[in-house]
């Protein structure tokens, strides 16, 4: 008997199908891993199971009975509790208040029964075999302890299903072990645990069973004890087709960007890299390997502790986005929605954001001069728009990404740093972005391409650096490896 079932779940978004006829069941007392690469549909499925998203079609059953989940509290009342990556605790309140948030025991009228509250919170923690002082404020706890509080909060309602979304992404090795112990304990009491993670080794330790999603499809469910990592990787990535890179792309000798001994505590250490004229340099690594932080530090968007950066042979003294732009460096951020675009503004002004000073003559900007830039980028990147005065928020992900790229191309840079430029965009837009990178390479520009999609790196790059735990551990040539080989190299500890 399944505690929780998803039956023929479909979820459609305009332009994409996030989930395509997914049917799954979760048994009590077992730890079920839910895995898949970015965009496979994991988080959509979690949201549907947690009641925060409605499926286009299909039904959810709890203990075999179909139930409509209209809101997160609906799901919660049915015994489905979720702990998200971003914790939802109130830092100023005590452990007990957080665990019992909104459900504090009362004595006559509005007055809180503190004795009962502390006892109740204490009891929940003891049941989980976690030692925490219930009177102390949550803000002073470590991240791992806060996560325990979050789990306790979920467990205090005795749920029958507990979903954990990437629970170890911010934990140390030791903390991960105590979390696993806790998860085991909970599973032994009969709770069905749904565990979302991308760390394969971890799943070996904690999961009984793994369900793999790929491109919105349920491609397989395997017993962890009877399967190999190779098989899971194969399920996750499918038949990887390696597309050919154009043959006329040649990297020059002249170094455009040199990074020496760049370090930032807790993020990346002793990074050395050189980007040459016309070169597309890939950086591969799992989430949390420090690749994004490194790229942002090179652009001056985030600080670093030591090391140096040279652009065109010249050492950059004060690294900031403004100075890097002056030196001909461009950067398209990972989170284009929040960091790359002013959503409420028009496509036109977003395409002219970075190049404003170049478009202006003595500080003055006219529509006509902006329109020249806008037309050039719209044509070059084939951005599909009806009118450049539309708000940029009305565009699809792929077209928004093209606006971010166009914004930087109009500055006529020598070096472009791409942070996950293909996340959440359709196949055609992806190929167009690659085409742009190749064209830039032909013009002699250097590109750094950070991506979690190994096939993309292999298709696009001249050379790929592999990052693990904040360090560059290896360098490979696309011709000398396969997608599976590269994935294994990124994940190996």
């Amino acid at each position, binding site marked *: 008997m399944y505690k929780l079932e998803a039956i023929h779940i479909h979820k459609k978004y305009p332009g994409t199908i996030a989930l395509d006829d997914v049917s799954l069941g979760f048994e009590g007392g077992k730890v079920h891993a839910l895995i898949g690469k970015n965009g496979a549909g994991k988080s959509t499925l979690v949201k549907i199971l947690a009641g925060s998203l409605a499926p286009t079609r299909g039904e959810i059953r709890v203990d075999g009975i179909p139930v409509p989940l209209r809101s997160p509290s609906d799901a919660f009342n049915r015994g489905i509790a979720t702990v998200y990556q971003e914790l939802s605790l109130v830092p100023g309140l005590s452990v007990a208040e957080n665990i019992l948030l909104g459900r504090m025991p009362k004595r006559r009228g509005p007055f809180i029964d503190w004795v009962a509250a502390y006892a109740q919170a204490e009891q929940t923690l003891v049941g989980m075999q976690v030692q925490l002082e219930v009177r102390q404020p949550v803000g002073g706890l470590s991240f791992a302890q806060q996560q325990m509080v979050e789990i306790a909060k979920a467990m205090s309602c005795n749920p029958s299903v507990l979903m954990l979304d990437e629970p170890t992404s911010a934990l140390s090795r030791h903390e991960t072990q105590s979390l696993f112990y806790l998860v085991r304990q909970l599973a032994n009491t009969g709770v069905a645990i749904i565990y979302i993670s991308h760390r394969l080794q971890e799943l070996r330790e904690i999961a009984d069973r793994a369900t793999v999603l790929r491109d919105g499809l349920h491609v397989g469910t395997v017993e962890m004890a009877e399967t190999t990592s190779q098989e899971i990787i194969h399920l996750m990535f499918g038949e990887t087709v390696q597309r050919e890179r154009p043959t006329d792309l040649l990297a020059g000798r002249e170094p455009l960007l040199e990074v020496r001994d760049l370090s930032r505590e807790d993020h990346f250490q002793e990074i050395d890299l050189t980007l040459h004229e016309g070169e597309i340099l890939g950086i591969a690594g799992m989430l949390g390997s420090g690749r994004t932080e490194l790229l942002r530090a090179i*652009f001056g*968007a985030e600080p670093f502790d030591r090391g140096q950066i040279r652009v065109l042979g010249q050492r950059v003294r004060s690294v900031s*986005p*403004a100075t*890097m*732009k*002056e030196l001909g460096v461009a*950067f398209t*951020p990972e989170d284009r929605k*929040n*960091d*790359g*675009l*002013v*959503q*409420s*503004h028009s496509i036109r*002004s977003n395409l*002219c*954001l*970075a190049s*404003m*000073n170049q*478009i*202006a003559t003595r*500080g*003055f*900007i*006219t529509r006509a001069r902006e329109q020249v830039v806008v037309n050039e980028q719209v044509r070059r990147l084939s951005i599909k728009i009806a009118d450049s005065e539309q708000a940029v928020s009305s565009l699809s992900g792929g077209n928004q990404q093209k606006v971010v790229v166009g*914004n930087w191309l109009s*500055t006529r840079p020598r070096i472009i740093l791409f942070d996950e430029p293909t996340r959440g965009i359709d196949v055609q837009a992806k190929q167009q972005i690659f085409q742009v990178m190749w064209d830039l390479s032909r013009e002699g520009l250097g590109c750094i391409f950070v991506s979690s999609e190994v096939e993309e790196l292999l298709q696009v790059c001249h050379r790929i650096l592999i990052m693990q735990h904040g360090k560059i551990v290896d360098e490979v040539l696309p011709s000398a490896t396969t997608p599976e080989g590269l994935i294994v190299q990124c994940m190996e500890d």
Partner: protein
Amino acid sequence: MMRQRVLTWTRNSIMELVLILLCLILAFQAEGFFSMANLLNVLRNISMQGIIAFGMTMVIISGEIDLSVGSAVAFAGCLTAYLTQFLSNLGLPLVTALPLAMLASLSLGFAIGALTGLIRVRFGVPTFIITLAWMTVLTGSAELITGGFPLTVFPEWYNFFGGGYVLGIPFPAIVFVLVFVLTQILMDYTSFGRSVYAVGGNIEAARLSGINVVRIKILVMAAVACLAALAGIMQSAQIMSGAATTARGWELDVIASVIIGGTSLMGGEGKIRGTLIGVIFLGILVNGMTLLNISEYWQHVVRGVLILSAVLINRINTASR
């Protein structure tokens, strides 16, 4: 299609339409409203606050606020009077002493605004709090340098800056139009203005696009404080004295005009032209209520209701877009 067009046009020009409606009602109801003398009077009355409102529009578009403009007006007037007295006591003729004092007031205004901006970006203190602090500091300082009594040290010709006419048009009104044109050009046709919109719309995207957001915030805060000092000088010229009690509560009217003009308190959106409408609207409403003999107590209530309705109209407009 046609209907859609009319609808969008109506939505975009709703304040203009309401303003025309208000004028029509007043033309029939309030005696003397449409006389040249009354309209010039309205124009003079709205000029001082209007000058500050254009600066405030920039501040609000950049995602900040300045609550100290009223006290800055009083302080600038008092400081100009005080310095004039001080310098002429040193033996300088008034012809030199007064312009020096005016220049000093404007510069100090600029410096205080710049300091606000600097504290904002360096220490992350909201401008709401910083300028609230300035509000009492400046009021107190104005009282300190005047000793609580209006300083009447100005020569007759100084009155021109507040009460004078050029070709029959009040001098402050000319400055008002000038500041309108300048800020309009600045916000629409310069990279500085466009950066102000970008910073207010999404500060992180602006920073990552290599825009110097620190500079933008500092300059915008400095601009409004400097304009407040300018208004303070003209106000002191109109009443021919530096008094600590002038312009009390102006910040409310100034911010109200900006909001009535459609500028979003969230930042990133707004128009100088909208503020022009907002300033005129508020000015005419107050004038009309006075002509209709509505008590000042009611005027306060109406003003508050107006601000609330303007914000609601804006929110509903944004939501339906």
